[in-house]
């Protein structure tokens, strides 16, 4: 039996299985949610910067994604997930659950409000991004801890 390649294969399998198993962990789920929010903002940002042609449907999809995620995001911080799996969640989340939820609600409310009147062209996109994006820092200022 060749030892090195066998060991290498074994390690890779374990890593792969580990990645699959970790996929449900709240830390990973909520990180993926935030990445989706970033992607949604990015899709709007690319149009605002003129890198992509304006498409109101993309704006609607982005705002809907953000509003949907904002609703469920606070549910993924159960006790016991304060650390581990590279989480950047601040312990303050568990100390101030009500305020943390209020910040998530603010993001959702901003996105929903903008959905009510999606701009017809790129000129109206700036204020949309500002209104929604402004809530990001409000939460991150207190509840995110840079690793």
């Amino acid at each position, binding site marked *: 039996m060749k030892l090195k390649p066998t060991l290498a294969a074994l390690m890779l399998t374990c890593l792969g299985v580990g990645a699959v198993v970790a996929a449900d962990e709240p830390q990973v789920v909520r990180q993926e949610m935030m990445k989706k929010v*970033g992607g949604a903002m990015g899709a709007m940002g690319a149009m605002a910067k003129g890198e992509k042609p304006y498409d109101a449907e993309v704006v609607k999809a982005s705002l809907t994604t953000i509003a949907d995620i904002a609703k469920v995001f606070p549910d993924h911080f159960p006790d016991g997930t304060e650390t581990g799996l590279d989480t950047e969640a601040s312990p303050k989340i568990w100390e101030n659950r009500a305020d943390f939820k209020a910040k998530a609600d603010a993001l959702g409310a901003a996105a929903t409000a903008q959905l009510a009147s999606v701009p017809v062209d790129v000129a109206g996109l700036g204020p949309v991004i500002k209104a929604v994006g402004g809530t990001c820092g409000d939460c991150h200022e207190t509840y995110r801890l*840079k*690793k």
Partner: protein
Amino acid sequence: MASKLLKTLGGLVVLAALGLGTFAFVTAPQPRPDAVWSGLAAADLTNGRRMFFAGGCDSCHAAAGSEGDARLLLSGGAPLPSPFGTFHAPNISSDPTAGIGGWTLAQFGNAMTRGVGPNGEHLYPSFPYGSYARMKPQDVADLFGFLKTLPASANVAPPHELPFPFNIRLLLGGWKFLYFSDAPRVEIASTDETLRQGQYLVEGPGHCGECHTPRDIFGGFKTDAWLAGGPNPEGRGTIPNITPGSKSIGAWSTSDIATYLETGFTPDYDSVGGSMVAVQKNMAELPAGDRDAIAAYLKAVPAQP
């Protein structure tokens, strides 16, 4: 035999007194000569406002959690935790009694650029005069003029909460002796005006190094790790490396950096967080050219791992 002991003790006391006296003399507060602050042009309030946001005065001197116009009420009191205890920034509103409304330009300038208080006392370097020391006297004068237009507050901030021996102001003379410098933090071999402006903004009023440069056990900069980041001096988390060697921003372009300072968004639309949120909101108030200059400087400083 007893007299020999007494003589030795007496000798030691005299030596100690001489030592303390020398220390006090060598490290005495050194305000700048009055000539530095006289003969300057009348305050340019637009530039004063620019210095206010570059200097981030409101981040410490406005009440904690202030937003929008509330940031202009510099009533003091916000706590600044540190390994040496908790500092409370004083009231620097235009109030003539509780604030700095009654100060002269020389008093303000000596506080800003030499860490010397209005009564000639040493100031704690939690007030980043170690960075502000690089500010041009005219910029300091413009800032002073702008501050005097801001609203007055009668608030008296709580005193610093510092355990012994950090509560002994006299010892700050020693700290300054070891660490105070107004020389450039890094040598930039270029005459490019944008780079020079960026160096001035970052090393001077921007005081970015105060958070982004790691410190040694006495709280002085590790100067060969300029802007390399490290553990958050306020307690939890990490302050990022912002040199070209940074894992987080090393690959960013100058335009990425300038956009982040203006909007708070990274190139992949992650958002600014922690103490940087207040800083970014101040950076957003600067002219675009200043953010471009800061970005250019950050791409030009030596890369730190």
